[in-house]
């Protein structure tokens, strides 16, 4: 079975632009969470979606938004990019919305110049 997939793997954007990152969970997993990982730090929680509904939101500005589709894939959108948004964006899927083991994708490396 395929693991969690994310696209693109790398992305370079300019300040002020917007970006859309995509994630496909493991087949059968209905929960998708998004994390931001700055180099040298632990992942920071951004959003969790379960059955297309937002179940949790971290301490990130409104420039960050996300959604989950009927096939449980998900998109993370970031508007008005700042230099500080440069990071590895990780998607994690799990079977339920309850605290459960999470399977992470390889991430999307976003560089904002």
């Amino acid at each position, binding site marked *: 079975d395929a693991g969690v997939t994310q696209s693109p793997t790398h992305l370079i954007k300019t300040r002020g632009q917007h970006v859309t990152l995509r994630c496909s969970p493991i087949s059968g997993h209905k929960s998708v*969470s998004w994390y931001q990982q700055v180099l040298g730090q*632990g992942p920071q*929680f951004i959003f969790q979606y*379960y059955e297309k509904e937002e179940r949790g939101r971290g301490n990130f500005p409104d420039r960050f938004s996300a959604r989950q589709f009927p096939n449980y894939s998900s998109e993370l959108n970031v508007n008005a990019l700042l230099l500080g948004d440069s990071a590895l964006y*990780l998607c994690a899927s799990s079977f339920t919305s309850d605290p459960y*083991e999470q399977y992470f994708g390889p991430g999307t490396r976003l560089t904002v110049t």
Partner: protein
Amino acid sequence: GQQVMQIPQYQHVQEGEDFTTYCNSSTTLSNIQWYKQRPGGHPVFLIQLVKSGEVKKQKRLTFQFGEAKKNSSLHITATQTTDVGTYFCAGPKDTGNQFYFGTGTSLTVIP
């Protein structure tokens, strides 16, 4: 707000030596998870602990959840070069389904 801290931040050991990382939360945790992230890789789930005082073993790895459910530890016996990476603990927020990751402990194993 809730904080999850880990010590040490870095650890260098000779191959064959033991290694321990400690995780401390400012609040009681309903459960705690441990992840390993290899350099350039993504976090990989290792284990979840739920019960107070719980101890679980995976081969050379021993995980413990404190009695007060505010701290946890990961102990590796006789480290190998394959153990290299950063080990993170992660605990859920008191409400909702947000996970707070610890600051991580980066392990280097010297052959």
